[in-house]
């Protein structure tokens, strides 16, 4: 399966890009995706962030169903 991943704020800085296509073998939960992502970008391990699936902040047990847009959201700073 493959899906779109978007990075924001300090996470885009760490990844060096603001979006990419993620390819995975078989189905993935949000938690499994998080683990793969931290393997690819170890510098994100000590950063706080939430994961949104199709613009909804999602728990680790949620299964990612394609087509999906995943976003990694660091702490909010509006205002």
């Amino acid at each position, binding site marked *: 399966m493959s899906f779109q991943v978007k990075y924001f*704020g*300090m996470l885009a800085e760490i990844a060096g890009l603001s979006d990419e296509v993620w390819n995975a073998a078989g189905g993935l939960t949000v938690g499994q995706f998080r683990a793969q992502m931290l393997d690819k970008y170890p510098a994100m391990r000590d950063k706080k962030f939430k994961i949104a699936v199709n613009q909804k902040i999602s728990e680790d047990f949620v299964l990612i169903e394609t087509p999906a847009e995943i976003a990694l959201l660091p*702490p*909010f*700073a*509006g*205002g």
Partner: protein
Amino acid sequence: MEKAHKPKKVFVQGPISPDFVAKSIASHQSKTGIGAHAIFLGQIRADQKEGGAVTGIDYTAYEEMAEQAFHDIREAAFAKFELTCMHIYHSLGLVPTGEISLFVFVSSPHRRAAFEASEYIVEEIKANVPIFGKELVGEAGQHVWKENT
């Protein structure tokens, strides 16, 4: 049933000018059911950081999700408080220290609803809208990422 409120454009590029705020106030003079406006303006503070003072904040957002979050906040505020109208504007891009990055403007027949709604809306924005802020620090081009508390 309350009338549905159309999604409105919230984001503006760069600082929000005092002139824009003044014109927004003036445009409500024909709405004579209003007895109270409450306005909240967020201004960029020159916090001291390692490396110098904050000179500005460069804002980015997950825009589609943020627009929906603003819409949800508007709907919730209209449901909770007796409001005649509501306007929310937030900056994207660079806002220098001392300039305005958030403009919340609520109008009601009476003051209590206006006061309470403006506080509610600002707190909701800070907690629930995916906006990110890079604080630019000092002269050497350093930065730190802002985090709402």
